[in-house]
């Protein structure tokens, strides 16, 4: 209501939030649809029929004959006969553009698609679907992310406002505070669907809401305590002019994304700003709900992009930003050339429409400044990036008479070594004739051109990857506020969704494996745990098998043994000297051929090596290079050189302990592996670099100890970090955001129905709705139910003690709920979707009554306090007034003047004073008198006492004297005798 009254400007915005009418009010949906259209729908018996072009088309039923239905298409009047299964019922027009698709009476693919499409065309990109929120990338800027919109969503319940990522964020934040439960927001979807953008909006929202108690006393009081001295100084000066609403931490948090994007995003065919890595951002809050720190974890950086790009694609933004934006001086320092001079920039310079690389460079540098990067750190990073490019310009020649590689021109190598702070001769030797361990000995082994090229590319990729990891590590250090205790967190996962290309490689397997796990988490929370809980709670419930248990498929990938899964087999193959990608496929087929989710293409010439039936569909995998990708081999001779670099930053990058994951170094060459050549020189190094032991000046290859023969592959490491992530997620309350890409042309306002349908099937939106409608998604323990809703049923429960279950049952009876809407378990009450929301609404209404009265009392309190103060001021004024008035009146009255003159002379006027003086003198005298009297009495008493004493003593003394005399007499007698 308040929104509409503020005027036209805001009104325009609300257009993008909800359909006409009032915000969020359920009845408003009905307004745009006349009774006529309702009648039309009923008379024509409208349905959806499949259509090549639109996905589904509307049609009306003409005739029904057993299993067949004759329909007439609404648009073309063409008549069709279809089987009954193909026809899907249409929802009444009242449900057009509903905000929550779980409300639809007819829930089918056609209706969901239709609803999303209608909303999308009206600029409404967010739609709820049961427990998810679905968002369709608008491919344009919508004015729905401003601060005033944030304010609109703040403190509101989900059903009070139109669907929005802010509503999801608010719900997560609120339930974190209310239930003291950690939250996660999982954004999934194809590349270009808007995952990263929505992640940023979540952070924007939280940064705003969880730090903007600027006027609040609690916020102010806390700040200085938590900040150390130096920080609070800078804070004071920057806060005022730079940003009023955000604190330093919040600003840094908001800057983390632009920096990560510069280094981890790239233009792809599908998406101009595609994240080439997955990330999990964890925002920590204290008990009062203020942000106290953050942490970012990244997954699967597509590092191969640093050395090669497909047509119309770019490598990571930072390369172009640096090449366009660096100053002349910096360019000279970094030995930069132009984009087309670098072999690793396969496509030269490819501008991104609407973006200026040089401007973005300035922004990236500014962001790094805000994040607290020192200028030295920034320059060092750019140096390393320049080095990555320079790696590509090193070229090798094949010697004439033998296979050995040589480097006739070492200009590029010199530049590279200058940038990385290593000796060019040592580098050349390490590349061309590295020392390799054969058995127990080390020998110098000359490399072929292919081997050298491979080593160079691997080094470039590894260098970039390490730089990226260092960056994440550095950002985490800036965002870590150890001084403040975090009570709970909200984690935001932004990770690529299912990828199904024509042929898929190891990277797709990792991504799809991740998604399988995430979907399993969803099914698990929403469904299996749900049914288990029904059982535990003794609720009558028919187990429904949605065919969604993904464990078989996950086992197929991750199972370590009996039989080993894909990853385990791949690892195993890396151990075998003669193994190739082919032998891997053969073994896999042998072990898993009976697995229901595994599929081996029948024709031996088939393009795909094998297929896995993921929940989102069948995916064809091609196993080329999987062994290499899994082992990720690296020339450890060069690695150790880099570790000893004279450049502190470079040696830091190659120091192991900045990495969270231990890495394996094994030495081999790409070429031998491909040709399956002599195995003697192919030594899988089992050296695991242990950060603790690498103290002295040991080289990676020679000096480091082998540790238990443990050999960590990419697959293993990934599986581990995924397991860790899943463990974290399982302990949170998940909120799901499904991002959908409407078309592959990056065009606004176009929605490709089949593309969207595929995604809806893939991401389980439809299943999610179904589960949500069949189950009892809301549950609440008796105690809490009573505590929260007792207000709705006054007098239902006797004041005396009553156990929770009985009380809850009484309350439910008093609420007169339909028995189908709830179940009473052993410790909780279960509700169907929407019931609790309704109760909440009633409760709010009820509480509102009390709250309004309390607010009136509170306002009364404030007003009276203000009034009291005013009254005091008034009476002070009155006193002054009276005196002034009296003075003014008398001042010119001759008699008064005379009086004032004469008064001091008059004896009479002094009488008072004299009497007073006398009286006080009298008082003094009488005081003195009484004092003296008292003293006299005291002395008298003492005297009497002494007398008495004397009289008692006297006889004694006399007696004594007498006896004494007698004694002396005796004595004198005896002496004389």
């Amino acid at each position, binding site marked *: 209501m308040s929104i509409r009254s503020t005027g036209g400007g805001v009104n325009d915005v609300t257009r993008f939030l909800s359909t006409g009418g009032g915000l969020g009010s359920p009845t408003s949906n009905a307004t745009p649809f006349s009774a006529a259209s309702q009648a039309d729908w009923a008379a024509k018996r409208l349905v959806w029929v499949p259509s090549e072009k639109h996905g589904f088309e509307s049609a009306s039923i003409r005739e029904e004959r057993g299993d067949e239905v004759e329909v007439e298409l609404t648009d073309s009047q063409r008549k069709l006969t279809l089987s009954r299964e193909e026809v899907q019922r249409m929802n009444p027009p009242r449900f057009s553009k509903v905000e929550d698709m779980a409300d639809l009476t007819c829930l089918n693919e056609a209706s969901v698609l239709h609803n999303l499409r209608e909303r999308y065309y009206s600029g409404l990109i967010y739609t709820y679907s049961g427990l998810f929120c679905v968002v369709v990338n608008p491919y344009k800027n919508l004015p729905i992310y401003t601060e005033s919109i944030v304010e609109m969503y703040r403190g*509101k319940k989900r059903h009070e406002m139109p669907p929005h990522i802010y509503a999801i964020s608010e719900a997560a934040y609120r339930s974190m505070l209310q239930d003291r439960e950690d939250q996660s927001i999982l954004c999934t979807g194809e590349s270009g669907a808007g995952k990263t953008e929505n992640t940023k909006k979540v952070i924007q929202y939280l940064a705003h809401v969880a730090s903007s108690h600027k006027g609040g006393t609690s916020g102010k009081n806390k700040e200085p305590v938590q900040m150390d001295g130096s920080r609070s100084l800078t804070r004071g000066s920057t806060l005022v002019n730079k940003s009023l609403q955000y604190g330093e931490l919040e600003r840094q948090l908001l800057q983390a994304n632009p920096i990560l994007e510069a280094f981890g995003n790239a233009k792809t065919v599908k998406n101009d700003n595609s994240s080439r890595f997955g990330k999990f951002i964890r925002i920590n809050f204290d008990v009062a709900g203020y942000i106290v720190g953050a942490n970012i974890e990244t997954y699967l950086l597509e590092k191969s992009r640093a050395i090669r790009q497909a047509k119309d694609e770019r490598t990571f933004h930072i390369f172009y930003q640096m090449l366009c934006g660096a100053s002349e001086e910096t360019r000279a320092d970094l030995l930069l050339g132009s984009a087309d001079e670098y072999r690793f920039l396969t496509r030269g310079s490819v501008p991104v429409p609407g973006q200026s690389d040089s401007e973005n460079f300035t922004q990236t540098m500014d962001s790094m400044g805000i994040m607290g990067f020192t200028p030295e750190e920034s320059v060092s990073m750019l140096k390393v990036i320049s080095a990555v490019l320079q790696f590509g310009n090193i070229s090798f020649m094949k010697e004439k008479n033998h296979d050995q590689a040589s480097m006739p021109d070492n200009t590029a190598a010199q530049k590279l070594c200058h940038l990385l702070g290593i000796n060019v001769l040592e580098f050349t030797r390490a590349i061309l004739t590295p020392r390799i361990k054969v058995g127990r000995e080390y020998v110098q082994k000359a490399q072929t051109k292919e081997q050298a090229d491979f080593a160079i590319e691997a080094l470039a990729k590894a260098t970039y990857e390490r730089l990226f990891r260092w960056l994440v590590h550095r950002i985490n250090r800036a965002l870590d506020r150890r001084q403040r205790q975090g009570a709970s967190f909200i984690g935001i996962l932004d990770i690529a969704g299912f990828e199904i290309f024509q042929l898929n490689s190891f990277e797709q397997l990792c991504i799809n494996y991740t998604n399988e796990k995430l979907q399993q988490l969803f099914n698990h929370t929403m469904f299996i745990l749900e049914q288990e809980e029904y059982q535990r709670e003794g609720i009558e419930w028919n187990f429904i098998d949605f065919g969604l248990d993904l464990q078989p498929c996950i086992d197929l990938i991750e199972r370590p043994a009996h039989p080993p899964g894909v990853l385990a087999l791949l690892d195993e193959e890396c151990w075998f000297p003669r193994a190739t990608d082919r032998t891997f496929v053969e073994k896999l087929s042998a072990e898993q051929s009976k697995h229901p989710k595994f599929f081996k293409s029948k024709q031996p010439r088939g393009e795909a090596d094998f297929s896995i039936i993921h929940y989102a569909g069948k995916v064809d995998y091609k196993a080329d290079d999987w062994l290499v990708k899994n082992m990720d081999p690296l020339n450890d001779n060069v690695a150790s050189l880099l570790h000893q670099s004279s450049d502190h930053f470079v040696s830091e990058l190659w120091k192991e302990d900045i990495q969270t994951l231990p890495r394996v170094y094994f030495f081999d060459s790409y070429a031998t592996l491909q040709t399956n050549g002599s195995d003697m020189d192919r030594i899988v190094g089992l050296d695991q670099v242990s950060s603790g032991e690498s103290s002295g000046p040991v080289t990676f290859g020679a000096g480091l100890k082998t540790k238990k023969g443990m050999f960590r592959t990419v697959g293993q490491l990934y599986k581990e970090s995924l397991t860790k992530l899943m463990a974290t997620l399982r302990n949170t309350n998940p909120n799901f955001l499904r991002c959908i890409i409407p078309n592959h042309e990056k065009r606004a306002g176009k929605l490709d129905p089949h593309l969207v349908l595929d995604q809806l099937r893939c991401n389980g939106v439809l299943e999610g709705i179904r589960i949500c409608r069949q189950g009892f998604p809301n549950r609440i323990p008796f105690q809490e139910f009573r505590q929260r809703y007792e207000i709705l049923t006054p007098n239902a429960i006797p004041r005396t003690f009553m156990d929770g279950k009985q009380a809850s049952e009484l309350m439910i009876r008093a609420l007169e709920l339909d028995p189908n809407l709830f179940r009473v378990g052993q410790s909780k009450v279960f509700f169907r979707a929407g019931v609790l929301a309704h109760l909440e609404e009633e409760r709010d209404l009820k*509480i509102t009554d009390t709250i309004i009265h309390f607010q*009136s009392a509170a306002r009364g*309190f404030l007003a009276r306090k203000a009034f009291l103060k*005013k009254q005091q001021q008034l009476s002070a004024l009155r006193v*002054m007034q009276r005196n002034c008035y009296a003075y003014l009146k*008398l001042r010119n009255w001759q008699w008064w003047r005379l009086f004032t003159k004469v008064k001091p002379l008059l004896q009479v006027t002094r009488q008072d004073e004299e009497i007073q003086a006398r009286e006080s003198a009298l008082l003094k005298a009488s005081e003195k008198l009484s004092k003296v009297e008292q003293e006299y009495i005291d002395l008298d008493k003492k005297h009497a006492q002494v007398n008495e004493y004397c009289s008692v003593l006297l006889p004694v003394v006399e007696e004594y004297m007498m006896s004494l005399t007698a004694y002396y007499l005796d004595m004198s007698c005896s002496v004389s005798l």
Partner: protein
Amino acid sequence: MAPKKDPKAPAKKAEPAPAPAPAPAPEPAAAPKAPAVDLSSVKIEFSADQVEDYREAFGLFDRVGDNKVAYNQIADIMRALGQNPTNKEVNKLLGNPSADDMVHKRVEFEAFLPMLQTIINSPNKAGFEDYVEGLRVFDKEGNGTVMGAELRIVLSTLGEKMNEAEIDALMAGQEDENGCVNYEAFVKHIMSV
């Protein structure tokens, strides 16, 4: 002794009193359907002394000097006189004015008296127990305290929403080091004036 300066002192009486606390932001006109109250039929039952007291309080709110006060001050005067009307009740008495009217329209004392009488005739019956019960709803641990953060949200988002300044003034010194508010003490504090 009579002061010797400020010959203009008597004129002070006409000067506006120090500005009272800014009136709460007026609620957007609630339910326009509610019929305006017929104030002419209200029977005034105040004694002459009371009327004088009220007139004095009323005068304190007159910031212009026309012996009238703005619509948006009516509620605060009633509160100053010991009543706890809701904004809605007051708006109803004023005939549900627009936000603009709240600022610009003014009421004279004679028109104010029946309004006050109406409010006094139907006082806010909620008492200490009711408020405590109302706040107990938010007491999750059942230990007699509620989260200050939650209380702020409740007061600023539900009912007749209060703004940040009002809430700050209200909650000053009520939150302990954990951000919790002992709501019984809080209600007592509020009902103390």
